[in-house]
């Protein structure tokens, strides 16, 4: 497995831990936290994906050496 995929997998694991603990912190009731979790996961990883795209576009536009 290449380094990129390993790092993506590690990011997925750490992101899941961060979102889950953040959800638990936000809501003390298990039932409500469980309902909240998918939307929080989606916003976190969706937001990260948008950030990656913006960074790649910026890199391609302003910092490409070619």
């Amino acid at each position, binding site marked *: 497995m290449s380094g990129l995929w*390993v*790092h993506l997998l*590690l990011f997925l*694991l*750490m992101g*899941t*831990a*961060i979102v*889950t*603990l*953040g959800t*638990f*912190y*936000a*809501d*003390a*009731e*298990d039932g*409500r*936290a469980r*309902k*909240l979790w998918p939307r929080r996961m989606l916003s976190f990883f969706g937001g990260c994906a948008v950030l990656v795209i913006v960074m790649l576009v910026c890199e391609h536009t302003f910092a490409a050496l070619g």
Partner: protein
Amino acid sequence: MTLTPKPARRGDPNVAALLTWFLPGAGHLYLGQFAWGVALFALVDGLFFLGLRLSGGMTFEFLDPELRSPFAPALSPEIANLGGMLWQMRNYGFGPGIVRPFPDGIVLGSMLTALSGVLNAVAMCHAHTAARASAPEAARRTALATLCAWLLPGLGHFLQGRRTRGAIVFALLVGCFVLGTVLAEGSNLSRERHFYYWAGQFGIGLPALLGELAFGSMRVTRDIGFVDAGLVFASVAGMLNVLAMIDVYGWSESKELGLPLKRSEVETPAASKVEIRL
């Protein structure tokens, strides 16, 4: 309309917690709990000064010269015992400015000073609850659950009867810490090598303490491929456990004092139907 009875107050909870932060036990003396005050002072500052003696006060000399500043040690667990940390900075600081060997007890000593910080944070929780609770057991249960949440991720939730949440917290945090330690090949378990990452992973309690006692003195003789990822995993796991500790404290506080449980601002069907007419 029903009125919920206001819990009895012995003093301002914030003042009690702040006093404890500056001097262990001072918050309890302010609340009139003399025995608790003396016992906490003896325990927390006893551990701190034992740690100082074992480490020769050299813990902050772990920091590289370019990282040393008056606020640099603030990102360490000792910050929760502010009086002790300021005393250490005033009397030992970053040493005489020359490289010198660390004493044999430096690992255990610096662990004890950090432990005194965590214990003082729990003492602050105790004082904050004791100021409002009518029964002394309420503050004791709250502080004990918070301490257990630090000792082993998920244990505090488990003791509160929130077993599913406890199991998830344990699996995620201990899993991340173990994975991080495996990725870093154990090199993360040294305060001398990674002062700030160590401070983060100290939040996970026993796994970090036992891991360091078992593997903390190993030598690194080659490049470790995933050391950065490992350090981040172990450190973030520790910091996330602080969130879990706050969750445990908040739950206990709500249950013991009859306060509403913490709820997120989720749009409920009933709330979404509210019309605002101007």
